[in-house]
Structures are given as C-alpha cells and as structure tokens.
C-alpha cells in the first residue's frame, strides 16, 4: 500500500510536469499580452514593463523561472490586481466553495432519494419520469439554463436578485448579511444542482438495480424482513459504498469554481476571476489557475482510487 501511494505520487508529479509544459506552452503561444493589449502605454513604457515582468526573455527561460517559483508555491503576481496569484485564489476560492458545496449537498441528497425510489419501482410511471427528467437535466447547456432561470425568477417574477453575491452598495452585517448572501446564492445553487443531479441519479438508480438483484437481498427478503429494512438497510448501504469513489472526483468541482455559472450569475468566485483574467490576458493568474485545476484533478484521481480500496476491500491496490 505504501509503495503504491509513493509510486502514484511520483507519477502525479510527472503528469503535473507535463501539464505545466502544456499550460505554459499554450499561454506562451498566445500572441499579445497584458502590456501589448493596453493602448494607453507608449512604446518605451511597454518595453520597460516587459523587462520588468520578464516578458522579453526567451520562452524556455521564462518557463523554468515560472516553474521554479511555482514549485515553491509562488505563481507570481496578477498583472491586473497587483496581488500574488495564490492570495487572490485564496480570497475567491471560498465564494466558489460556498455555492459548490451547497449544490453538491443538494445534488447528492436529491439523487440518492430519487435514484432509490425509481430503482425500487423500475418501469413505473415515476421511474420513466425520473429517467427522462435526468436526461433533460444532463442535456441543458449550462449557460442557457442559467439565463433562463435568471429571466424567469429574477427578471419576470423578481423573486431573487439576478446576480452578484450582495446587493451593490449594501453594507449589512451579521444575520442580515448571511440572509442576503443566501438570497443571492439561491439561483446559482439551483442551476448547479439541476445540472449535476441528472447523471448522479442515473448512477444511483443503476447501482441500486444491480444490488437489489443480488442473492443477499433475496436472503434478506426470505428471512421475512420488512421491504423498508431490505431496501434502506441492506441495499442502500451497499449501493452507497461505491459512490464514495465519486466523492473523490468531486474535488475539482468543489474548489475549481463553476466557470460558466459563476460568470452568468456574476458570482465572485474563482471561475468568474478566471473569465475576467481571460479577457484581460492576465497570464500569471491564468496559468496559476489552470495549474491549480490540474493539481486538483490529479489529486482527486488519487483520492478516488484510494477511497475505492477503502470502500471495497476486494480491490487490491498494487
């Protein structure tokens, strides 16, 4: 087990190294940078700034300087905010985490309940409605779902604010502030939950259907246990176990920010930060964020594999 983890970690480092080359290469390929894109600067000032930011050096040299700093946890300064990239990400990440964790919680709750019910009544009307509903949820383009919901709930009905985290100019504190944030959170969380619940419901439904056909369930029924006990105690537990692996994969979704949803709802999270940095070509921030996503993905893969071993002792990690 120890050897396995060490090998996986080494492999992770190699993959991340490859990813860093790719990320840096792509950004280096992009013509035009933060300095070039600013029409207010004179040519002399531009040259000066480029020297200051090290943009005049050859690509390979710039890469190794960047990598050397990145390994030490320093992703450089955001050109647009004049703040270290890591501290910027640190500021915005919790806003992303707030809506992501709320929607993950709802997604799992709804998916488990609906998945179990529709599996126990396979081919019933409820099951068909759930199946089609799950496919519908998977087929909405995220941005269009967001736009429709804003149009309907915020513009037409006026029930919820159309975007942002607090009302502009508001300086509420304490309980009123919390209430205000929840009011603003509602719609983005609704969209994220809607987008995620489809595939997870299908997952639980299939899992339950598989488990419910197994011999130990028949044994439980033969013992004369109540159907409720059979479904919720014997079957659901076993259906939940492999889902633990999925929790590992949730990591990037929890901290990586929902780029599209945050942009549509103007939610001040890392996804929104990324889109802003994108239009301004703020490379240190973009590279830092993309690298951060890569690290999250690799870490979540490892976590999922380890959790899989925990959930199912028959799986031997070698």
């Amino acid at each position: 087990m120890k050897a396995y983890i060490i090998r996986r970690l080494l492999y992770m480092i190699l993959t991340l190294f490859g990813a860093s080359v790719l990320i840096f290469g792509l950004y280096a390929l992009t013509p035009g940078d933060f300095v070039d894109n600013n029409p207010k600067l004179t040519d002399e000032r531009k040259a000066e700034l480029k020297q200051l930011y090290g943009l005049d050096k050859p690509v390979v040299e710039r890469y190794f300087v960047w990598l050397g700093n990145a390994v030490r946890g320093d992703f450089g300064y955001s050109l647009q905010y004049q703040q270290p990239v890591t501290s910027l990400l640190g500021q915005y990440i919790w806003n992303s985490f707030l809506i992501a964790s709320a929607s993950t919680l709802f997604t799992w709750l709804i998916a488990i309940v609906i998945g179990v019910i529709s599996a126990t009544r396979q081919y019933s009307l409820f099951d068909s409605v759930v199946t089609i509903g799950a496919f519908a949820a998977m087929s909405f383009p995220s941005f269009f779902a967001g736009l429709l919901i804003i149009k309907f709930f915020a513009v037409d009905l006026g029930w919820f604010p159309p975007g942002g985290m607090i009302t502009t100019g508001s300086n509420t504190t304490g309980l009123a502030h919390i209430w205000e944030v929840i009011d603003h959170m509602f719609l983005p969380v609704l969209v994220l939950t809607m987008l995620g619940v489809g595939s997870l419901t299908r997952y639980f439904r299939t899992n339950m259907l598989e488990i419910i056909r197994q011999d130990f369930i028949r044994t439980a029924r033969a013992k004369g246990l109540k159907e409720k006990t059979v479904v919720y105690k014997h079957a659901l537990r076993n259906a939940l176990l492999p889902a633990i692996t999925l929790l590992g994969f949730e990591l990037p979704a929890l901290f990586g920010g929902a780029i599209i949803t945050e942009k549509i709802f103007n939610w001040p999270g890392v996804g929104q930060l990324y889109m802003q940095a994108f239009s301004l070509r703020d490379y240190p921030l973009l590279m830092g964020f993309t690298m951060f996503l890569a690290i999250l993905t690799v870490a979540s893969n490892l976590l999922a594999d380890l959790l899989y071993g925990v959930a199912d002792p028959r799986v031997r990690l070698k």
Partner: protein
Amino acid sequence: MSSIVTETAGLAGARAGARRSSLWRDTFAKLKKNKVAMCGLVFLVMMFLFCFIGPFFSPYASGKVNTVMINKPPSLVHWLGTDNLGRDILTRLMQAGRISLTVGLAAMVLSVFIGSVLGVVAGYYRGVVDQIVMRFADILMTIPGLPLLFIIGAILSEWKVPTDYRIYIVMLMLSLIGWPELARLVRSQILSLREREFMQATESLGLRDHRKLFFHLLPNTVPILIVVATLRVGGAILSESILSYLGLGVVPPTPTWGNMIDAANTLIDFQKRPWLWIPPGFAIFATVISINLLGDGLRDALDPKMKR
C-alpha cells in the same frame, strides 16, 4: 458431445456468414422496442430535416437585412420574430442548426478516428508506444476541458483566423479535447481482445499488423464505439455552443445556436426580447436530449452485459 461441437461450429459459421448485417439487425430490433430511444431517433431525424431542408421552404433564406422589420416579436409573418438586422429568427435557427449539427458530427468523427487509431496501436503494441500515447492522453485529461478550450479559442482569436475557417478549427479543437477518453476506452478493450483465440489465429495465418489491428481488433470494439460516439455528438454540440456563446468558437456572420444566444449578453435583448435567444437554446436542448436518449437505448441494445 460431438453434436454440441458441430452445433456451435454451425452457429459460428452462420454468424460469420451474416455477421455484419445481423449485428445491425439485432441492434435495430432491440432499439425498436425501446420507445424512449425511438422517440429520440425520430426527433433527431426531424431536427436534421428541419435544419437541412427547412431553409429551402423559407422566403427569408437569403438573410437579407430588412431595416423595416427590426426586432419584431413573433407574428404570423415571422413565426419566431426577427433579430436586430431584421432577419427571420426561424430561418436563422435552421441555418445555425446546420452548422451546429455539422460541427458536432465532425468533431465526433474526428475524435473517434484519432482516439480509436491511437487506442488500438497503444493497446496492441504496448511498451514504449503505449507509454507515449497514454501519458500524453493523461496530461491532456488533467486539464479540465473548458479552460483548455478557452485557451485554444483565445489563441485563435489572437491569430486572426478568418471567420470562414473558424468552424473547421472548432471541430479540431473539440476532437483534440475528446480523443484521450476514447483512446483509453479502446485501449482497455484491445488489451483483453489481443489475448483471445482469434488473435492467435491471425498470428498463425501470418497476417500483417495493419490487418490484425484494423480488420480484426478494431471491429470488435465497434459496439462500444457506437454508443460513445453517439453520446459524443451531444457533448460536442454542447461544448460548441458554450464556446460560440462566449465568442471563442464560431463567430458571426456564420450563425450557430451558441452564438445566436449571444443576444442574451445585451441587457435589453435579454430582458425584453426573449425570442432572440430562447429558441436556439431550446434547439440545443432538444437535440442533445434526443441524442442522449438514443445513445442510452443503443447502449442497452449493444451491450449484452447491461441487463435491464
């Protein structure tokens, strides 16, 4: 005992004789019983007809600017209203659908092609080739698809690629993102298929490698590939719409469903003129859900391990 042997041999012979057609016939017979999947298929065919043949019946197909009829709500003359240049939305929806569907299909074909070729090669030869291909796939898969697409989209915007070529480049971008998963899938299939008896037969027959790979190994992965490829078209249409909506994919004047929704970025159009951006959104939704339902039906029909 011997009767069983001859029987199975006869069965295998019969199967070999009509194998290609029988796989399709079986699949279609099973698919026909699945009402939901058939709905998806029928709707998809209708969508294709609507987009590819529809414009021939429209009096507004030329897309001429009509200054008198700007931003008109839906009426009997213009069923879905007109846009800011006085063009008929319904006609534009069909024309945009042509592009969106073509991009989705082409991106799927390309990524299936790249993914299956690399997957077969990696799985069959293993060793160094496998390492190189799969490690590269791993690296591409570490970076989430959307940011990666954004970066490539931005590079293209900066390079001032002519708008006519953008749709081809969007196809390439989407297949670049899509192939690693397919390569992984095909490779894992090949790893077990290459140990089977029929491969020993190809060995003793002295077949060349390319025959083994593309005539004996790859056809065995076709059932799974069909399912994944079908679902891929939906995914590609969704990705294209996001990119085009953000102005990083196919850009006007070429219409796609995604860049038609771009109208929602203007506050007044978003709030007061929903006919500009709601129809293309539902067109995407309807197309993708039909593809997903069909793909799910195909999975049930083609994957014997999936018992319903």
